[in-house]
């Protein structure tokens, strides 16, 4: 696996998504102070490699589940920016018709069946889709992303047990960014090595550099294939770092919540930079390729934003629709 050669098309695609997530969220940071995106936003900046590395191995039919910090997973899974921006603005054209906001996005066309903002909440739901895949024998793999915080919750263990007991086609991806809101992992978990829990549930568990998209791509490939071929679930702990504050566009430095040095060290391990340096150094892609991607995305972001801004709001009577 280590020596797997990733073809140029995939490299380009992954770079495209890395930058797309970054630019989308940078736009949020730029515009959020205007107070027109009136919902809490949990930014994924700094963690992009994980979503991208995994989703690059998935088909449209494969399910992805996520949590409150969901933008990256949706974009990497191929969701268009238009309904995402529109959702942030509370517009009727939003992917959830304005009812969900940032934390609750859906896009069935890409097998995103909805994201929960309850810590750990999406995990058993993801297992349920994996159960359906198995019952339907349709080879749709499930990837569920969650934070280190979700490992505090009992439902995480219940879900691992059930998935392994039934050998379901699911990959559990814990994005360990060492914090849940402002609580450091050591305030919450006696064992810092989350991936080790996989042992008990008799599934493979590995730890990976969450900022190295190529490494992630390879590991993801291995375990997604494994799931697809009926060998059951696995757990990947991807260690990474959130650059911004838990919620909102600021950083924790201005707020004095986190150590400046700690943040700086991780910013230096930027997953985009890491990728760019690697592909250029090894002549896998050219500078021009990268620049093109940047331009393309800039246009997409602007168009999506325009779409959102010119869309209309829901009507008051929509309040009562969609309950049942």
């Amino acid at each position, binding site marked *: 696996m280590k020596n797997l050669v990733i073809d140029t098309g995939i490299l380009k695609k992954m770079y495209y998504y890395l930058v797309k997530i970054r630019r989308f969220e940078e736009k949020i940071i730029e515009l959020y102070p205007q107070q027109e995106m009136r919902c809490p936003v949990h930014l994924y900046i700094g963690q992009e490699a994980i979503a991208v590395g995994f989703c690059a191995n998935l088909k449209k039919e494969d399910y992805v589940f996520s949590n409150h910090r969901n933008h990256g997973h949706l974009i990497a899974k191929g969701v268009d920016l238009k309904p995402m921006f529109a959702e942030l603005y509370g517009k009727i054209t939003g992917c959830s018709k304005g009812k969900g906001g940032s934390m609750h996005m*859906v896009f069935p066309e890409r097998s995103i069946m909805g994201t929960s903002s*309850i810590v750990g*909440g999406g995990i058993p739901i993801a297992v349920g889709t994996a159960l359906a895949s198995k019952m339907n024998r349709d080879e749709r793999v499930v990837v569920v992303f969650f934070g280190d915080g979700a490992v505090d919750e009992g439902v995480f263990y219940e879900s691992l047990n059930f998935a392994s007991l039934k050998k379901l086609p699911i990959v559990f991806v814990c994005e360990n960014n060492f914090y849940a809101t402002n609580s450091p992992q050591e305030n919450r978990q006696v064992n810092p090595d989350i991936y080790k829990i996989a042992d008990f549930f008799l599934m493979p568990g590995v730890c990976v550099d969450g900022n190295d998209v190529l490494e992630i791509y390879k590991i993801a490939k291995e375990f997604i294939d494994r799931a697809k071929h009926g060998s059951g679930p696995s757990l990947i702990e991807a260690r990474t770092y959130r650059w911004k504050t838990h919620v909102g566009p600021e950083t924790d430095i201005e707020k004095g919540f986190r150590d400046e040095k700690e943040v700086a060290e991780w910013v230096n391990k930027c997953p985009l930079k890491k990728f760019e340096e690697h592909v250029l150094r090894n002549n896998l892609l050219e500078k021009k390729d990268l620049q093109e991607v940047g331009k393309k995305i800039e246009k997409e972001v602007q168009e999506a934003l325009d779409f959102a801004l010119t869309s209309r709001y829901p009507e008051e009577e929509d309040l009562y629709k969609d*309950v049942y």
Partner: protein
Amino acid sequence: MSWDRVPVDLSGIRVLTQKDEFKGERVISYREAIREALSSALGRDTRVFIFGEGVDDPGGVFGTTLNLHKEFGQERVFDTPICENALTGIAIGASLAGLRPILVQMRTDFMLLSMDQLMNHAAKWKYMFGGKVSVPMVVRTIIGGGWGSAAQHSQPLQGLFTHIPGLKVVMPSTAYDAKGLLLSSIHNESPVVFVEHRWLYDHKDIVPPEPYFIPLGKGSLRREGKDLTLIADSFMVILAMAAARVLEKEGIDIELIDLRTIKPLDYDLILNSVKKTGRAVILDFGYKFCGISSEVSSFLMENAFEHLETSVLRVALPDVPTPASPILEKAYYSGEEQIITEVKRVLK
């Protein structure tokens, strides 16, 4: 069909009042009716599956799932770990992927472990995503204590379920309804909590062998009368019918509504009846405080005040946990006498 009217009778094993009408019809128990609905759903629709702790065991959840795993395979009827919250989430996920899960929770008390997936997730999933996805799933659960089941094994929690927008809550009182409402619940696009009552499992009723569907959200007029409306759910319907018989002998003519579905409520049926009788007592097999009886009473307050002759009263479980001792347990559960007392208070 006239089951809609008066299929309830308490004389010994339940015999129907309008005997002649149903001559030659098949009579089965509430438990068998539920099993038949499940069997029918499994047989007709490959998307349906049933899971939960003990569904394939020799008891078969009071007989309601007995041997279904043999008939339809272990993959579609299966035992599970005891992890109520995950199981409820798994039902949601499976339904999002196009299946029709039926999760069985042997005692409603255990559902308190799954409130997160039920209330934060199942109830909200469709709304939160603007209707783009939906969660057609059924949680079958069983209320009714007795034999010292005590505080943690006797709770009727339907009041909680109805409080949260997005859930439908069904409470059948007869075998006929149990089958027809369960089939409707399974074929419904919303998450449904289907509340069965242990004390009803042996009750019998005419139940057609073929599948049929009773609409959710529609109550049933069990008895026509002009003096006072009893509005009841689940086992309280049985008590209400018994009370009505006794009262009849005293010249009091009771109208009886079986709510069948407690969320959404059948407001029209309730309103029309109370407009006619001007008096009502509400009977819920659940806690009184912020319960179904409160909701129906406050609905009448808001919508029928000018038609009411006097206060609407409530009969429900007292606001204390369930005790174990037989003496206390007896005092805890209302019988038909309490209903009769309240009816007379209203009529005085």
